[in-house]
């Protein structure tokens, strides 16, 4: 991922309303603008604008179905920003302890 792309992700998520929309889509799955607006506390055009920014950062996908657009989160876009090294440092340490316990239990 280029620095420019990373920056667009950071910028997109720097806004609390956009972050809330993204987290909501991540948690609840695909939604229409109407459904999102009902809870976002801002107008529908404002929600649409936020969705455009999220889409540009590839954090959100859209899909037309009937007369409405359906939006879904693409958490994969965040993956290059996760500190994988720190994550797996902890992960493998934990797995080594579990491996040792399995070795103790196993037939010789």
């Amino acid at each position: 991922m280029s620095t420019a792309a990373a920056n667009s992700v950071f910028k997109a998520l720097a806004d609390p309303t956009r972050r809330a929309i993204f987290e909501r889509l991540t948690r609840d799955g695909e939604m229409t603008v109407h459904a999102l607006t009902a809870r976002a506390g801002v107008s529908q055009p404002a929600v649409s604008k936020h969705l455009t920014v999220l889409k540009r950062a590839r954090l959100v996908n859209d899909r037309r179905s009937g007369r409405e657009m359906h939006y879904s989160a693409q958490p994969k876009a965040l993956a290059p920003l996760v500190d994988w090294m720190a994550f797996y440092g902890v992960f493998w340490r934990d797995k080594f302890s579990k491996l040792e316990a399995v070795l103790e239990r196993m037939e010789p």
Partner: protein
Amino acid sequence: MSALNAETRSVVVEKEFAHPPEKVWRALTQGDLIVQWLMENDFQPVVGRRFEFRMAPMPQWDGVIHSEVLVAEPYERLVYRWDSLGLESIVAWTLTPTAGGTLVRMEQSGFGADQEAAYKGATYGWRSFFGKLEQVIGEIP
């Protein structure tokens, strides 16, 4: 016992177990044993074989880690791919016999240069946000 090597961008965990290499090899390569310490899997120690590690699916993530056996030298070396959510890495196990058992070394490499973006992200004070993301990625059982 573990280290984050910034230069080679790898995670290394090393530990001596009081068990012989043959036994450690079984724990690393038998599906019914792997599930007890790592994850659900359809692993077989055959070079070129593609397989999956599976965690419980999360919203927006099927919980699958895509893998392929690259090296399988019994009792000595086991290497497989570890691809998940945009991370493409390699996990390499090396077993060395010792007087008291086996020195087990795991090196996961292939962390991208874009890790720097992650450090920048952390300085923006988004730790809690990434914490939530890690829940999405998968609560490690």
